[in-house]
């Protein structure tokens, strides 16, 4: 079972938390992530938070692509490619 969605924790009351995904809110159980805090992002599956997202790691991964962005854009310019070439 694989569908899990990242959402931000707005408030915590005991074993439950209200989370927000782009303005849509839901109450879920945080029994499996007792370490969670307000402002954290959690992965939600089937009404439960199954993990707290490591935002630093997420940013690292995204940063990697942003850096590659500049590198490849320069490389492409030098080779005369257009950055919007279709991928095939």
């Amino acid at each position, binding site marked *: *079972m694989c569908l899990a969605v990242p*959402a931000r924790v707005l408030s915590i009351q005991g074993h439950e938390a209200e989370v927000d995904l782009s*303005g*849509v*809110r839901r109450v879920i159980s945080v029994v499996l992530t007792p370490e969670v805090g307000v402002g954290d992002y959690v992965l939600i599956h*089937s009404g439960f938070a199954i993990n707290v997202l490591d935002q630093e790691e997420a940013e690292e991964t995204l940063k990697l692509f942003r850096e590659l962005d500049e590198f490849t854009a320069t490389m492409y310019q030098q080779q005369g490619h257009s950055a919007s070439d279709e991928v095939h």
Partner: protein
Amino acid sequence: MSNDTIVLAHGSGGRLTHNLIRDVFVRHFSNPMLNAQDDAAIWTPRPSEAARLAFSTDSYVVQPIFFPGGDIGKLAVCGTVNDLAMVGAQPLYLSASFILEEGLPLADLERIVASMAATAHEAGVEIIAGDTKVVDRGSADQVFISTAGVGVVPDGIAISGANAKPGDLVIVSGPIGVHGLAIMSHREGLQFSFPLASDCAPLNGLVTAMLRADTQIHCLRDPTRGGLATTLNEIAGQSEVGIEIDEAEVPIPESVQAACELLGLDPFYAANEGKLVAVVAAEAGTAILDAMQSHPYGQAAAVIGRVTSTHRSRVVLRTVLGAHRILDMLTGAQLPRIC
């Protein structure tokens, strides 16, 4: 006998029925033909009216009967008005038949009927005939409504699901998935910081504005049950053409996307009750799009694809990543996935 809920006697045809009709239906729907309260309404077609008539019928059993942005009554009026508008007809008159469950609060019925009157007024139609039955508690889900409507089709209009031609543009009148997700979210207890309300709306005014801009509209359809994907497949099948849709161009509100992620649903299969899909001749595209965007119900209208002569009867989606895949019709009900 309680006088604030519907009881079986309300459907018996006697005094209670007459009082109900007088105090609720006729009071809200009031118009000369209905007020006459004969067994049938009679009217003489106006000389200016075209020769062709359009006729449509629908039934409404939605649960819950009241939802953000509307109710079963508004849905019923819009549904039939829109069916007529989708063949290019100007809707004139509606009938409305009610099957009421014993125990339905009168206040609820009145609220629904008032909503229907307001929607009919906005659409410029009159409700000229109706019927009321009451069934035992448990035999109906609060209220079922059935509507039928008649309209006139101006000369020269030929709008049909079978008329799409390769090269035509596919336009949607606004963001999709709103009604379906508003209902599902309401049922599942999702809250919204900006509440998601049904887009339920009468579209005949929009269609009139579009036809005034250019009559080269080949197909019109409102993507209700089954969503945008199903409607596009219907047109592709009827016209025996291919349709290619650019996923990046399809307007989907962020709240609908987020609700879909949370509920495991796909917005392409969610119902819309205030949107239409138009397939128009390419050269008419700009004029029609402008007219739509100038109308309150078409402000976010967008070209989302085109009709092709390849993949006949199939709809192909160009994904946000540039790959192509088939966008199939809905099979069964859309069941939310956990996997």
